């Protein structure tokens, strides 16, 4: 209303105004945009705003200088014990982490065989690349390799067929987190999709099976499932068969994530308008065709934030294997603290482990944002 009252006379009555239908697009006046304007409005809008801005700048400054000082400037990077560190500087004692680095990475994997773990990591990156980036040249062939990768990795890590066998009891540190995390992520998505579709099925048996599976998995804490994997599962397999504990853990973590994944994807499926199903049906597409070509591409795109959320949660939950006596990167860190030479360095250990997880999860989060933007088709 005020717009009409104040602006109408301006354009119509002023001399040099434009004739109707000839008004060009003009740039906005400089007082309503630009960085100075932004700062004036958002940071120094009133006395209270100004005070808060200055206070925040002060806190940021002191926090950053403290952190940079502790982590880099006053930090000791070499030494054989905590005393050596303290003799040089009073900041972080990274020498501790450096000293234990291979333990953090490989756990108790036998030293002469550790090249196999390195090779598995490198091959993992090559296997993930074609899945993440669809513009990769020769993607079709690369994807076949990605499908074969789990078998190659299992062979490299466990051995047999010409390689020396390594018991999975010796897996530990970061490699244990990555083995569990990657397996869980790779298998929970397809299982979750099948469960979500099954939950919507017209066949009552399929629906009941899927719903009960999802509800049971979601209703039980992961730690309980891991205990079940460690202790109880051996009651269900025939006596004499030795079902590897790591495999049992992998199955439990994967099933646990699948239950959540199914619900995330169901949310995406529900957002697909009925018209999409009808258009696919009317075209004569079969059920699996319409799911694969029409419904799932859209539902999964909508579900990306939830899917990645589940991935990140699963990845961090890999540290829970500590409850059944396996030492992942956090477990190794914890047990390293018992060494009398290095006592009192828990901050360094936890900061290191936290940074490791943060970098991994942040990458997943950024990738998902990039993917969402890429898949946006303007609707």
């Amino acid at each position: 209303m005020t717009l009409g009252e104040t602006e109408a006379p301006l354009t119509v009555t002023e001399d040099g105004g434009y004739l109707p239908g000839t008004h060009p697009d003009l740039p906005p006046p400089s007082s309503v945009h630009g960085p100075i304007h932004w700062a004036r409005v958002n940071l120094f809008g009133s006395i209270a705003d100004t005070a808060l801005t200055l206070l925040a700048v002060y806190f940021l400054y002191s926090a950053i200088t403290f952190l940079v000082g502790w982590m880099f400037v006053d930090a000791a990077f070499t030494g054989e014990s905590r005393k050596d560190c303290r003799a040089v500087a009073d900041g972080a004692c990274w020498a501790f982490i450096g000293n234990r680095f291979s333990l953090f990475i490989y756990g108790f994997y036998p030293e002469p065989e550790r090249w196999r773990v390195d090779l598995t990591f490198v091959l993992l990156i090559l296997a993930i690349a074609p899945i993440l980036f669809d513009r990769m040249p020769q993607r079709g062939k690369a994807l076949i390799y990605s499908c074969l990768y789990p078998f190659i990795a299992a062979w490299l890590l466990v051995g047999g067929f010409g390689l020396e066998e390594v018991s999975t009891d010796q897996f530990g540190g970061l490699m244990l987190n990555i083995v569990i995390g990657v397996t869980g992520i790779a298998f929970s998505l397809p299982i979750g999709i099948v469960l979500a579709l099954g939950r919507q099925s017209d066949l009552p048996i399929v629906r009941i099976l899927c719903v009960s599976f999802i509800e049971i998995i979601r209703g039980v804490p992961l730690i309980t499932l891991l205990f079940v994997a460690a202790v109880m599962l051996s009651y269900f397999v025939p006596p004499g068969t030795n079902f590897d504990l790591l495999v049992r853990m992998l199955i439990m973590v994967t099933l646990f994530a699948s239950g959540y994944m199914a619900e995330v994807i169901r949310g995406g499926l529900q957002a697909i308008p009925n018209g999409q199903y009808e258009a696919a049906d009317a075209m004569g597409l079969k059920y699996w065709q319409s799911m694969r070509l029409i419904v799932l591409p859209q539902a999964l795109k909508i579900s990306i934030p939830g899917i990645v959320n589940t991935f990140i949660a699963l990845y961090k939950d890999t540290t829970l294997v500590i409850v059944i006596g396996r030492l992942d990167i956090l477990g190794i860190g914890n047990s390293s603290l018992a060494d009398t030479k290095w006592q009192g360095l828990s901050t360094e250990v936890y900061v290191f482990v936290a940074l490791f997880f943060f970098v991994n999860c942040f990458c997943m989060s950024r990738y998902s944002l990039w993917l969402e933007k890429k898949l946006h088709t303007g609707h």
Partner: protein
Amino acid sequence: MADTESLAETTAQIESSKGEDDIIQIVAMHKWFGEFHVLKDINLSIKVQERIVVCGPSGSGKSTLIRCINRLEEHQKGQIIVNGIELTNDLKNIDLIRREVGIVFQHFNLFPHLTVLENLTLGPIWVRNTPKKEAEELAMKYLERVKIPEQALKFPGQLSGGQQQRVAIARSLCMNPKIMLFDEPTSALDPEMIKEVLDVMVELADTGMTMIVVSHEMGFAKTVADRVIFMDAGEIIEQNEPHEFFDNPRHDRTKMFLSQILHH
């Protein structure tokens, strides 16, 4: 497969002895939504190349009627025979009929994650097993026919409503259907876009396509339709050729409906 086809053929023979070139036969058909009796004793025969406009107040069952013809809705009583095949719960029959019947929806229902070209080639490639290149040529042919070949590589979300509906028509035509159903194709469009869609439909009618159009576009009905059907409360109240229908409506409810839609 062979069984179905031979069954289809015998059914076709039986039907062709009844009405010479009826492509759709609906006999004593009823449908309920739960307790609600939405279609009541529908009897309707449609000849090859016939163009029919169905009108009536909202909730009268006209959309449901045409959605029964390609089994997007299931009827509970009576018979629907399309192209010589009776619609039953047999999925093979449903697939056979859906291959021959195209439908255009009120809200276009294009696939937003695929380009216009991919929307058009999806059916030919996956349902008719057409090679990709051939399917793309076919798609471009129909995009030219609906006059938007230049939009082929855009996504539906980047097009105007009128353009989207024309893409939807082209998508149905790519399946080379014998019958085209239109479920209020212009109701969701801005006024200035209605004409471009109706023009495409008029051209399609000129090619001899069998068409059933649920619409309130009375101008379209007058120029194109062979027959106008008026439905109310789940029943076919009156049907006639358009001239008679508009100038000389017989039933009171038809008169009232026409006076309501024509007087503004």
